């Protein structure tokens, strides 16, 4: 996985309002764009996690009976 692929994903999430960003100056004096998760993003994460859990438990159940 290339590290650069992070950025389209980040920007996509920013477009959807899951993360917010702001430009900050780091200790080394570099300008950096810092991303933070938003409330909407947390909700989304919880939803996704829940649906993932449902999926995996479903798969587990199928595997158990097979």
């Amino acid at each position, binding site marked *: 996985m290339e590290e650069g692929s992070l950025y389209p994903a980040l920007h996509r999430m920013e477009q959807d309002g899951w993360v917010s960003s702001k430009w900050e100056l780091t200790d080394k004096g570099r300008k*950096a764009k810092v991303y933070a998760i938003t409330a909407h993003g947390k909700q989304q994460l919880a939803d996704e996690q829940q649906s993932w859990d449902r999926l995996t438990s479903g798969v587990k159940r199928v595997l158990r009976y097979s």
Partner: protein
Amino acid sequence: MPWYQRWRNVFRSEKLNAEFDQEFQYHLAETTDRLVAEGLPREEALTEARLRLGNYSIQKESTRDMNIAAWLDSTRADIAYGLRQLRLNPGFTAIAVLSLALGIGANAAIFQLVNAIRLKTLPVQNPQELVLIDFEDGSVRHGSGWGPHGIASYPQWDQIRTHQQAFSDVMAWHQEQFNLALGGEPHYARGLYVSGSFFRGLGVSAILGRTLSARDDNDACSAGAVISYAFWQRQFLGDAGVIGRKLTLYGYPFPVIGVTPPSFFGMEVGNQYDVAIPICADRLLAVDGKGRIPLSTGFWLAIIGRLKPEWTVARATAHLRTISPEIMRATLPTRYRPEEAKGYLANKLKATEAGSGVSGLRTEYERPLWLLLATTGLVLLISCANLANLLLARAAVREPEIAMRLAIGASRWRLVRQLLAGSVLLATAGAVLGAGLALIISRSLVLLMSTPNNQVFVDLDPDWRMLAFTAGVATLTCLLFGLLPAVRAAYLSPVSAMRAGVRVTSGRERFSFRRGLVATQIAMSLVLLFGAFLFVRTLNNLVTEDPGFKAEGILTVYIDFGKSPVDYVARDASTIETQRSYDKRRAIYHEISDRLSAIPGVASVAQVDMTPVSGNGWDNLVGVDGAAAVNGKDCNFDELSPGYFKTMGTTVLAGREFNDRDTFSAPKVAIVNETFARTFFGGANPVGHTFRVSAEAGKAEPVYQIVGLVRNSKYHDLREDFQPIAFFPKTQDETPGPGATFVVRVTVSPGPVMNAAKNAIQEMGPAIEIEFHALSLQLQNSLLREKLMATLSGGFGFLAAVLALLGLYGVISYTVAQRRNEIGVRVALGANRANIVGLVMREACLLLGVGLAAGGGLSLWAGTAAATLLFGLKPHDVVSLTAAAALLALIALLASYLPARGAAGADPMSALRSE
């Protein structure tokens, strides 16, 4: 980020790129630092960091895609590209935009008129609720009619008003000119008599003062006048203190009580009202002091109603039908004979939608305007075909480039969009410019429809319909001329285009499409030229049509002495007209006639009731040689003085003109025309025979002896077939009025004669009104519509022919250029000039032949649409079609001969060398 930021980012991509760079650079710098800390040398660490990041450009691109509305971005790029292309070809751009602007402008202008005359609703409250109350076809209402829309008598209006239940309000009005001048030459205002309910019912309120109300329209009739905004501006220069100022209408003063808003022009589309006074004021302005209100056989009022909620037009009609018998019974004129009364009692009222008002202009011009819209539509199609041809040629030049882009993976849809972007820009520019042109063109057309006495007013303010039409036409145009070339270019096979290499050619099949376009253009121009010939020939037929009199040099003089003491003396103190007052008037007529004859430059003078082709008429049933007139045929009448036929230049074929011995006490005599003789006597000489004219109930039918036969002359208008006319001597008129019309044949310029006449008449007494018209001008003005059609269709036909020929020229030149090598070989092998010219011309003739054949068929079909507007020729007039085809063929052959001659003259060596 919401969608609008993605849209905004399209237009700040530089800044966006810089941000990405910064973000990526930070990432690289941090990774490098970390790697250096792990022990890698700085150089290697940088390379490693880059490797881990992946392809820098691709990552940046895909990040950018997340931040931008991609379709909008590509559209922006397409438009920028299109603009650049257009800038690179300023000549092409100018021609394309200009021809589109002209085409779209002409269409939009004609549509604007159609819209104003036919589609727009009245600028009043809820116009869709308004319905016109009218009599059903075939209703019996003998008597006198006034005004273009007068259908009901005052008693009928009174009954309708009291009995109807369908309408929340019913309004009546009558349209008439009011003379503002006190004696001398009249100065007319366009007037309205309105019922007290009129303004309230329409929902029109005054912007200054108040409108007329029910209180103003009563027997006392003390009310004033409401004026239109335009009249307020024109006559009173927008004076804010206008309320209370006096307006003199036919010598009677009315105080101004209110001004209506600028948007309200009255009830008739095409005519703006100036002054409105209550219906009761008709009595005040009437010569006899009674006016038309008591008349049961005077039909002068138009009636409109506002539907109650829940009522439809159909329900209102049903309601009006049920109350009709009651209304007819209550208003039956006593003078009707039994059979007339039976017909009258069976009359039925009906309701028709009236949201867009009433209009004589609409009746006269609706069909011509739709035809003109079709004409301009065809012209636009032809210029679209030209543009498509040009674009196809340009696309052909770019074929290798397009093939290359297809080969390396461009999507066809993307290419079509890019090619279409240029067309969209052209169409947009054309539409904007065209809309501006339309505003000018439509105003000039309205001026063309107006005469000094009949100023046409239509509301030309652009509305949503006009905008939608222009936008629609522009879109259609753009698709027509842009889409096909674009799609064809994008769907070429890259292999074949690239194989062709430097020699830019297109396949036979592709080129045949362009030839098809040219043949279509020729067909459409033939239709337009044919139409132009039809209308020009119609106008010519009408202008050269012998009206039966010599209009040139005839001055008609209208004199009204009803407001002058000259006539007051003629009437008794009680203003009741007596035999003595009639005698006095006959003497006044005589004096006027004598005074006019004495003016230098006047060859002869005669009095007449109605000048021909004035729009006035008088007719009744006639029976000859003792037969009862009731069962006879219809005949037109006029009254005139001795010397009329001599003055007008109408030949007396048998018998005599009237003379001074045909006095009031002498036996009643008449002169008839040829059609009268043919209709009633089978063409035999009618002189010496008698005829009767139908009379009202209880009165004997008067008998007239025919003393003369004259040549046919036109009565109502120039377009009609000759009708039977009987002329009576003015001297035997039983009830002469205070107005008289004279025809004066002048041998010098009319200006001095008019001045002398004015002085001569003023000498007789003050407050005598006098008005002049040139009869020939009156005739010309009656042909306004024909002139408009001939001018416009001629202009458009010419334009269409020029456009089609340009198309033909282009295609033939292109063929010649394509076949340069072939022609070179032929010349080298011994073909002579004539062979080569023949070769090229054969192609042109083929296109011309196909175009003319198709166009001929179309023309015959289109001609029927114009049938009602033609005069003296059939809708499938062979002469017009032949002339149009011959003209088109002649210029087309000339247009293709030029490139053909060029081809034949080319040096075969140079052509072959380029191979």
